[in-house]
């Protein structure tokens, strides 16, 4: 890693060498390859035994929470739009992928049992389902992003909140799930609205969510978030957050940037929804589209800091792990959350880490130079 050097803040401008497709891939793909390797290591070296099974669930939950909080942070933290409807994208992704794996499994294998391990045929169906869910969520993100062009601050918050609540109500009105036997004799009436369980929730989904897939997607999320932050688009997002009007005057297409932020965030929330839906011990319910679940992720981004990716990762981890230890105090959990929110706003409104990453922070006596990172070593974060 090169030390920050104020005299040459840029990579020496060499003309692009033709490295061919493989070379480019190798250059750009290493963090994600590293992520896959780490995810695989986590998956295969995870100890067996009943106690570890419990920790595994916590670690899975942490991974999913990280994806949701970091993706929300792209909208709320980096772009400065205030969305209270992030859980709606989770639900859209979850329900879409659930339909694919549940009914797809029945069509392919006549049952909803697991088929194959981490890279077995069932897992590929699952990954396809998650990606499809993410794409549907992205489309929804586009629709939800549109009001952000006309509405600011609290109005946008209310519209996004309303979107989540509408979705919750609509999901409650869906048809009961069809079992494999019922599938053959089903008519259009069973399919409209889709048979995803109504108020009961979408249960009986194959439990394909494993440490491997969760952390592959976490790696993908982090790579995207860090690359976005240090890119033209990321700068444009930050400028929209800080001063929309000045951003426009500097040639930033504000509308495009906002909608883009919503779409990227929705994509990853949809992906996380797929993971959430297929995690064992969890049932995807209409309530998961609603305001209270969205609030969980809002709190993580507020706590972590507006735009600090590492801060939000830390906050997501803490706020997922701590309640596990405070199970007995479950009725106090939301009280603690609310006091956290109020206290943060009164005492440290920029969040734990503000706009900085954790590694930007050093005690003031540590060095006299201001500790901002050189633009040339941004890749460090991606790994």
């Amino acid at each position, binding site marked *: 890693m090169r030390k920050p050097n104020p005299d040459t803040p840029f990579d020496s401008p060499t003309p692009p060498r033709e490295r061919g497709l493989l070379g480019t891939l190798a250059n750009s793909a290493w963090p994600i390859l590293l992520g896959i390797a780490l995810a695989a290591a986590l998956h295969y070296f995870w100890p067996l035994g009943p106690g570890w099974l419990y920790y595994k669930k916590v670690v899975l939950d942490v991974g999913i929470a990280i994806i949701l909080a970091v993706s929300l942070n792209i909208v709320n933290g980096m772009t*400065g739009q*205030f969305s209270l409807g992030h859980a709606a994208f989770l639900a859209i992704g979850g329900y879409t992928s659930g339909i694919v794996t549940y009914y797809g499994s029945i069509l392919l294998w006549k049952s909803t049992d697991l088929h194959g391990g981490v890279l077995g045929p069932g897992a590929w169906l699952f990954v396809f389902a998650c990606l499809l869910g993410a794409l549907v969520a992205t489309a929804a993100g586009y629709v939800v992003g549109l*009001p952000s062009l*006309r*509405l600011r*601050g*609290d*109005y946008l*918050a*209310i*519209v996004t*909140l*309303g*979107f989540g*609540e*509408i979705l919750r*109500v*609509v999901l*409650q*009105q869906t048809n009961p799930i069809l079992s494999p036997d019922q599938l053959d004799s089903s008519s259009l009436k069973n399919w409209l609205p889709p048979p995803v369980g109504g108020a009961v929730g979408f249960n009986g989904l194959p439990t394909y969510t494993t440490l491997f897939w969760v952390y592959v997607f976490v790696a993908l999320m982090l790579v995207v978030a860090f690359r976005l932050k240090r890119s033209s688009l990321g700068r444009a997002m930050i400028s929209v957050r800080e001063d929309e*009007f000045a951003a426009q005057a500097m040639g930033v297409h504000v509308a495009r940037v906002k909608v883009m932020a919503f779409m990227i965030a929705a994509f990853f929330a949809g992906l996380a929804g797929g993971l959430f839906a297929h995690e064992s011990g969890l049932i995807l319910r209409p*309530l998961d589209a*609603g*305001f*209270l679940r969205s*609030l969980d992720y*809002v709190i993580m981004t*507020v706590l972590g800091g507006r735009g600090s990716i590492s801060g939000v990762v830390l906050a997501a981890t803490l706020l997922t792990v701590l309640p596990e230890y405070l199970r007995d105090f479950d*009725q*106090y959990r*939301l*009280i603690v*959350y*609310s*006091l*956290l*929110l*109020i206290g*943060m*706003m*009164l005492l440290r*409104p920029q969040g734990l880490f503000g706009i900085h990453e954790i590694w930007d922070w050093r005690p003031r006596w540590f060095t006299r130079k201001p500790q901002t990172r050189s633009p040339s070593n941004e890749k460090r974060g991606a790994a």
Partner: protein
Amino acid sequence: MADFAQTLMTTLAVGSLYALIALGYTMVYGILKFINFAHSDIVVLGAWISFTLTRWLFPAVGLDAHNPDSPAPPLWLGASILIAAVVACSLIGFVIERFAYRPLRKAPRLNVLITAIGVSLLLQNLGQLSFMFGPSPQKMPALLSNVELWRLSLPSSGGARNVVIGLVDVMIVGTSAVLMIALEFLVFRTKIGTAMRAVSYDLEASALMGIPVDRIISYTFMLGSALAAAAGFLYALKYPGLNQPAHTTWVLLGLKAFVAAVIGGIGNVRGAVLGGFVIAAVEQFGAYYLSSSYRDVYVFALLIAILLVRPSGLLGSTVREKV
């Protein structure tokens, strides 16, 4: 025709509840320019305080809520419970403003919004603790027997049908009307009202003109909370099955009232009342003539449509942002 009349009656009753709550949103927004997310929780507190008082006072005056033959409670009992709830909620409103919002007077609006969400969560979950109101729904004893006042026979598709107008609905509409007229008088005819309008027009200039801004803001919060408490009390009369404080029905009730304020033109007192009735009409008629499962959807669809077409609401005036 009969169906229409019945739905209209419900619309009036529900609409006046929405209007009462919407007034609180609109007054706070008018002055401090943020959505007081905790406002709906004041409604909840109003309803649950009314419930708690009723449960205490019923035995004290020799009534039994579980005995259907027990005589109807006297009118003064209901009135004093209403006043007690109003006073309690005004004080809570004062405390919230003083300790959560006032320190943030100069902070970005988003921070205030997040604080308001925090206060809302706090109130909900404090209320749900077992030594407060508890985590389960309760049945509100009838403070007012729903006497049949009028019975109209109106033609309907299946022959003539009776439309019954009960005391509870009339009481709700009547009480709300009195409160709204009182507020109208207060805002437009008194010194405090003039000060409120001045602060809402320009907070800093008002301060320079010698208006005690902090005190006016406190009054506004107390006034809004008082109306919310009244709405909570009336809501408990109309729908005695009270959900626990953190239940989503309360959040939705608050949201719809906020939507009413936005539709009427946020910051506009008369607009909030109009918006309350518009929302109630959309919800009730939509529920009756289309499908009742999607009643919340109609309201939010209307909100999104209004915000996109006329963001300043029906009676609001457009404000040009200074750049």
